[in-house]
């Protein structure tokens, strides 16, 4: 481990401890929200590195999270049946399952993604989100639209007089998120990150420098989906369930919103973005419900969605580079590759 990496690990450990300490200041519901935010954070961090560093836009990270969630539920249920009496082993087995399922799916998708340009990859991943409920219906192991349950991980006895179960789950969530995100942060700053930036900057130049863009892109996609899968495992631990309805199109797009609003490529931005998509709808809903009830039933729920949408637009307009972003860090647009540079214009037009 070189010096910068060990510094990074140290900082990650410190931040993890700070986050765990913060759970003591929160009541059970907010600890649950924190656990949810931690799960989203792992997925958004994976997404932000993928989009920010390699320019591959995935609209399907909710499905990768779901893959992790199903992997967790299946493996931990099996382990709990094989080893009754233990709580920790099914949890670890579940994490293994999450990594395996999301890793394989991510690798397959990454192989396809390496060949595709921005909007084409976006279209493929979007179709994947729409197909998730069908897949749950067709594949018996996914148990249809009711989804699967995951074993409940109670507070260990030594701690049970100290903390509530929500706080315990928040700890687990923070720890898993840390395990998922720290390698991303290290990768982003290391050689792999350099290769990704090289590929994003100019694929031809990268090739000339003996960097294989296809390999880099596939690798980035796999790593990113591993993080998303661990995020899905976190949600499965906190909610003890995984079902296709929870990983729909709206949620998948919210993950993209979190990555962009936070600032593409930035891990801290991913944390802020995740906190925003978890806490902001709830804040807006609370504010909206403070309005007099006689304004009409139709406002119920809808007003909160409307205000949330408006805030998303306002934040994007105010900080197009994201909360953590500075203008110079704006990555190259994943949707356009060379299309605006004058030299390629003739080529673009010849076939019409």
């Amino acid at each position, binding site marked *: 481990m070189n010096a910068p990496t060990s510094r990074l690990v140290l900082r990650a450990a410190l931040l993890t401890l700070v986050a765990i300490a913060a759970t003591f200041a929160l009541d059970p519901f907010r600890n649950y929200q924190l656990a949810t935010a931690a799960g989203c954070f792992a997925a958004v961090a994976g997404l932000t590195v993928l989009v920010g560093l390699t320019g591959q836009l995935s609209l399907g990270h909710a499905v990768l999270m779901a893959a992790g969630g199903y992997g967790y539920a299946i493996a931990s249920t099996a382990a709990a049946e094989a080893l009754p009496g233990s709580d920790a082993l099914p949890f670890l087995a579940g994490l293994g399952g999450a990594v395996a399922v999301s890793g394989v799916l991510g690798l397959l998708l990454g192989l396809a993604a390496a060949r595709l*340009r921005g909007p084409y990859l976006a279209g493929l991943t979007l179709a994947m989100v729409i197909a998730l409920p069908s897949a749950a219906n067709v594949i018996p192991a996914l148990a249809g639209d009711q989804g699967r349950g995951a074993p409940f991980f109670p507070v260990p006895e030594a701690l049970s007089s100290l903390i509530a179960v929500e706080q315990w789950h928040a700890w687990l969530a923070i720890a898993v998120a840390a395990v998922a995100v720290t390698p991303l942060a290290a990768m982003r700053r290391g050689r792999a990150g350099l290769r990704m930036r090289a590929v994003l900057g100019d694929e031809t130049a990268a090739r000339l420098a003996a960097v294989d863009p296809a390999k880099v892109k596939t690798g980035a996609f796999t790593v990113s989906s591993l993080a998303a899968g661990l995020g899905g495992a976190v949600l499965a631990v906190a909610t003890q369930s995984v079902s296709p309805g929870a990983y729909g199109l709206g949620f998948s797009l919210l993950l993209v*919103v979190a990555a962009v609003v936070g600032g593409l490529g930035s891990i801290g931005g991913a944390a802020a973005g995740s906190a925003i998509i978890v806490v902001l709808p709830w804040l807006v809903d609370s504010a909206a419900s403070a309005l007099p009830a006689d304004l*009409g039933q139709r406002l119920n729920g809808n007003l909160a969605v409307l205000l949330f949408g408006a805030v*998303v637009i306002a934040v994007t307009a105010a900080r197009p580079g994201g909360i953590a972003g500075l203008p110079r860090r704006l990555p190259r647009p994943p949707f356009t590759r060379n299309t605006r540079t004058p030299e390629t*214009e003739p080529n673009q037009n010849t076939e019409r």
Partner: protein
Amino acid sequence: MDRLVFLLSTGLARGAVLALFALSLVIVWRAARVINFAQAAMAIVAVYVAFALTAASGSYWLGLAGALAAGAVLGALVERGPLKLVPRDTPLPGMIVAIGLVMVLQSGLAIAFGPDHRPVRAPFSQRPFLLGDIPVLSAYALFVLLLAGGVMAVLALLFGRTSLGLQLRAAAFAPETSRLLGVRVPRMVTAGWMLSVATAALAALLLVPTELGLNPHAADLLFVNAFAVAVVGGLDSPLGALIAGLAVGVLVSLVTGYVSAAAAPLAVLGLLTAVLLVRPGGLFAAKEARSA
């Protein structure tokens, strides 16, 4: 055999609407190099306008004209409004604004009109003609096919044979050069948006009578499937949108009929994956510049 003819004919009518909506995505992609994620919500707002006009006047055709006009106005408003707030050199901020816009428009519609489905009558009978014993296309399905085909022909003429079309294409592909040559690029981009959303509004208007009714979410799935269609066809290719639209419509109908309704989205995903693996830029992709 009877079954096959029946399923093919239902699939074609669906496919025509899909193709039209996919075409609207192709137009805005060609004009502004963006995927408009708010296309469905904007189209549905225009259909509400048509619904109100038809209810007030009793004329379907006035409603149809209203939908086209409302779509065009909405396209211009969004392009000149919220999207002006964010930089254009990278597409993601625009996409996030569009997602925010979807939330605002759909919940706004739900607040204004309620979440219920409002039945929309078709202007022609939906009773299928019989070919022997087999029910095939209805008058309304024929109307949809003809209108969709007509709109595509007109747009093809517009893009291929008129000066406006040339300017639209030039502004999209070479904004800097076009500007030097006197093309008013911002105006052309706005025109592309207007055309695109008007086309989407027409597609949504044609779809609604065949489904549960008008509802803020009535075009959500249409957008997703049309996006898949546009990608299969090649985002730059109107012809691709047409052919892929009909193909996906027929595929969904066949899979639903012979396998199950649940398998249909998986079949679309499978088709999309297969096409993109063979042709990463869609079926009718323009040849790319060699990179290395």
